[in-house]
């Protein structure tokens, strides 16, 4: 056991990773049913997901999880059997059960258990759905066979007594599901190897899946069963002869067995007049028992696949690669739900690998260093004053391009689809909807949009809050909706998409829209604005984001959790994002979050002010211009404005605002950068000159000095010097605006 501890921990970790994927497909399936886009396969996918979780959990002795998954599975089986229709309350129960399953997994991951009281209700609900069938199902269950991978020795002592009673029913249900087909059908010989069970597969479910496709007769071959004293409980001594209907082709059969490929001896003969005598294998070769040999259908497994050369169509062993190629031990469980999911030839998923995030981050950092280094190199080459078209300049250009695409590719590794995040929101919607008694549908679009992992992680909280708000405050009560002639079921739409180099996530509802007079009144009551303030509609909408604004009169236990929208806004701004609101009375509200694709690099403009190189994010700079006398206008004692075509923008000296210098005598011939604000207004930031426009690697500033106003991060320039990356919006908002030396007193 001691040797296996690490391996166990790894397998355990990969189990939980797989469970996340399984839960995802479970959630997908339930969503499909909920949105009425499901087909007959959907329920099988759902069932298999739950089943695989159960199988894996059994291997790790997570009894609470196994028990729950089992009840869930039993209820789902009723649906598969057509005895239960997944709609209304039943479906809601399934959703809640999926949520609990996810909670249980989370608890198990942290070596804990959930308080049974928290899911008692769901459990009894599921039991009620399963009805009288439950007992029978229980008897058929294969739990005794699920082995603790890393620890076989104690099992030897425990198992022999259990194994024989556990096994015989195997052939039972399969036999019951198909009538004898005589000799007109195909024949399959199937013998499971130890590893098949280690990976949480069960022959019964394979046979069932096969039975769904065709008529199936099965015969359990017990000839190899040794005496009890010789019995190795870790090895399955049984094999099966299956007779299929004539209506099935080899590909479909191979698909069913695709995920146990390499873990069993499998021969398939297409329908023939005669059933040839299939000799049972005398002794199955048992692969070395170390858990890491149990990896998938790769090299280890290949010898086990025995496509008889004379079979009409060999199983698609070679051209149907396992969908996941894993660097670590990868039990087959996650693949299982996909096995029978797509009857038509499935679009092959791209092979993927799992990599430790630390390695990726290290790679990202290294590439960041490379980019800096490359910039330094370019700079020194420029200083040498090479003739144009010199080989070195050309080579350097290519080097630059390569570095850039290398960086892009590396950044893409960290990118992840927002799907998982959106699915979490589905749960939030259901929970909140239940609590406030509203009927809500969550529509998601653009789930495949990829965003940096860190962005996704840090987006979860603000998004949760916004979703809660949308359901709780955004949507009207059911009565109000009906009165307004709207469908009873409210819709919250969550969309993600790329828009001009940024990721835009929108949360919209089809509720009543923002009650602007009320918002305005609250803001006045809370003394956030003057009673006489003239506010446009969008100004009023933005009041929601003001600190201290909470629509107290409607605080419920859902949204009034002390997290105001200002916190949401701050969290999103910390990610380099922005939030905006559009709302149409009677039609709904839409919150739009715009985020940078990555937090690691930034397209920036390198400028110089007061002798310091500073970087401004390119995306907030609307325009650059040289300051001319005709554009300048004095305003007040210390401030000036810049006239830009028809409008005015306050003139801000970057050097002064950063505290590097006192205002200059004249800003003529300096460069003004027009900074666009979210509300459409602009300010002009004056710098001494523009140095460069380039991609910079973002380096975090330590918080040794707390948050420095106006400074977002730092970067390293080509000469190895650090330049600060500024947050122009922060600067302009907190600006002193001083651009003139007061005539009488010295500026301090």
């Amino acid at each position: 056991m001691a040797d296996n501890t690490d391996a166990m921990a790894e397998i355990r970790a990969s189990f939980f990773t797989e469970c996340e994927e399984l839960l995802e497909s479970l959630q997908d399936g339930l969503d499909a049913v909920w949105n009425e886009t499901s087909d007959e396969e959907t329920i099988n996918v759902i069932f298999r997901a739950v089943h695989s979780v159960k199988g894996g959990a059994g291997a790790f002795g997570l009894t609470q999880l196994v028990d729950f998954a089992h009840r869930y599975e039993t209820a789902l089986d009723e649906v598969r059997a057509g005895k239960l229709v997944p709609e209304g309350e039943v479906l809601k129960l399934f959703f809640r059960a999926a949520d609990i399953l996810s909670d249980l997994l989370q608890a198990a991951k942290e070596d804990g258990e959930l308080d049974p009281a928290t899911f008692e209700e769901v459990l009894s609900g599921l039991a009620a759905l399963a009805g009288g069938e439950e007992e029978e199902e229980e008897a058929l269950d294969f739990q005794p066979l699920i082995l603790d991978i890393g620890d076989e020795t104690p099992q030897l002592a425990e198992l022999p007594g259990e194994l024989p009673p556990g096994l015989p029913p195997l052939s039972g249900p399969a036999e019951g599901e198909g009538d004898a087909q005589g000799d007109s059908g195909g024949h399959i010989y199937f013998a499971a190897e130890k590893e098949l069970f280690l990976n949480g597969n069960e022959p019964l479910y394979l046979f069932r899946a096969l039975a769904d496709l065709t008529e199936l007769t099965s015969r359990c071959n017990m000839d190899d069963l040794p005496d009890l004293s010789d019995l190795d409980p870790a090895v399955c001594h049984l094999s099966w002869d299956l007779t299929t209907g004539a209506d099935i082709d080899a590909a479909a059969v191979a698909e069913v067995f695709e995920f146990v490929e390499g873990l069993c001896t499998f021969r398939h003969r297409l329908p023939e007049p005669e059933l040839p005598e299939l000799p049972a294998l005398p002794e199955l070769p048992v692969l070395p028992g170390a858990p890491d040999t149990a990896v998938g259908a790769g090299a280890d497994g290949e010898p086990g696949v025995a496509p008889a050369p004379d079979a009409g169509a060999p199983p698609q062993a070679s051209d149907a690669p396992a969908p996941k190629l894993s660097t670590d031990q990868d039990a087959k469980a996650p693949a299982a739900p996909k096995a029978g999911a797509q009857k038509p030839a499935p679009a092959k998923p791209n092979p993927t690998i799992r990599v430790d995030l630390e390695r990726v981050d290290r790679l990202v950092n290294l590439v960041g260093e490379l980019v800096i280094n490359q910039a330094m190199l370019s700079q020194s080459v420029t200083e040498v004053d090479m003739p144009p078209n010199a080989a070195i300049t050309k080579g350097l250009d290519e080097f630059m391009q390569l570095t850039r695409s290398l960086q892009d590719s590396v950044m893409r590794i960290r990118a992840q689809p927002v799907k998982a995040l959106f699915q979490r929101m589905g749960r939030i919607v259901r929970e909140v909807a239940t609590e406030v008694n509203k009927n809500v549908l969550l529509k998601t679009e653009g789930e495949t949009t990829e965003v940096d992992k860190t962005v996704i992680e840090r987006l979860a909280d603000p998004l949760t809050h916004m979703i809660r708000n949308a359901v709780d405050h955004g949507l009207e009560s059911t009565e109000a909706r009906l009165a307004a002639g709207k469908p009873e079921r409210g819709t919250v739409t969550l969309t993600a998409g790329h828009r001009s180099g940024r990721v835009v996530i929108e949360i919209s509802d089809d509720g009543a829209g923002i009650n602007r007079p009320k918002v305005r009144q609250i803001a006045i009551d809370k003394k956030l604005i003057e009673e006489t303030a003239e506010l446009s509609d969008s100004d009023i909408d933005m009041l929601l984001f003001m600190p201290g604004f909470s629509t107290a009169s409607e605080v419920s236990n859902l949204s009034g959790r002390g997290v105001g929208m200002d916190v949401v806004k701050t969290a999103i701004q910390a990610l380099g994002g922005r939030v905006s609101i559009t709302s149409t009375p009677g039609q709904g509200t839409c919150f739009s979050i715009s985020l940078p694709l990555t937090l690691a690099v930034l397209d920036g403009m390198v400028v110089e002010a007061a002798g310091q190189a500073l970087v401004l994010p390119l995306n907030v700079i609307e325009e650059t211009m040289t300051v001319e006398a005709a554009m300048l206008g004095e305003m007040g004692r210390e401030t000036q404005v810049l006239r830009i075509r028809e409008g005015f923008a306050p003139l801000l000296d970057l050097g002064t605002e950063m505290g590097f210098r006192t205002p200059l005598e004249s800003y003529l011939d300096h460069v003004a950068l027009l900074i666009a604000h979210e509300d459409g207004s602009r300010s002009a930031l004056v710098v001494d000159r523009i140095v460069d426009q380039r991609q910079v690697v973002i380096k975090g500033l330590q918080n040794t000095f707390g948050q420095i106003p106006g400074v977002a991060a730092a970067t390293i320039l080509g000469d190895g010097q650090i330049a600060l990356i500024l947050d122009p919006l922060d600067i302009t908002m907190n600006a002193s605006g001083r651009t003139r030396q007061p005539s009488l007193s010295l500026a301090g």
Partner: protein
Amino acid sequence: MTDQTTQAPHNHVELLSFRVGEQDYAADIMSVREIRGWTRATPLPHSPAFVRGVINIRGTVLPVLDLADRLGLPQPDEGGRNVIIVVEIGDEPVGLLVEAVSDILSVATGELTPPPDIAADQGRTFVRALTIVNDQMIRVLDLPAVLPDVRFEAA
């Protein structure tokens, strides 16, 4: 980094001594990561005067404090102070700008005496202990106290 086995034997501490504002100071050598020459720092806006800015040390942004300024000592000419001691305070590396690094001293813990109470002395709070080596008084820095207070407010 902080390998326990390199601790000096017999309850000794090893100290890195250095000169700041014509006084001798020292810091526990276990906190010192490296010593490097002065490079131009990028100033941080709106920061206290003793924060000289940030420098690039192999891709990491390192804040640099002017120790003389921080301790309220007279600041010699720019040319006189050209060594940055990179110390780790808490988990964060910080550069301390000093005039010169003098020596590595092994001092028995018993010979470290807490500084006397002198209410008026502004520098007192930065000194953790005093000791005498070769007839010279060495002030052992209380490193966390050297960091600006804002860090603790923000943490």
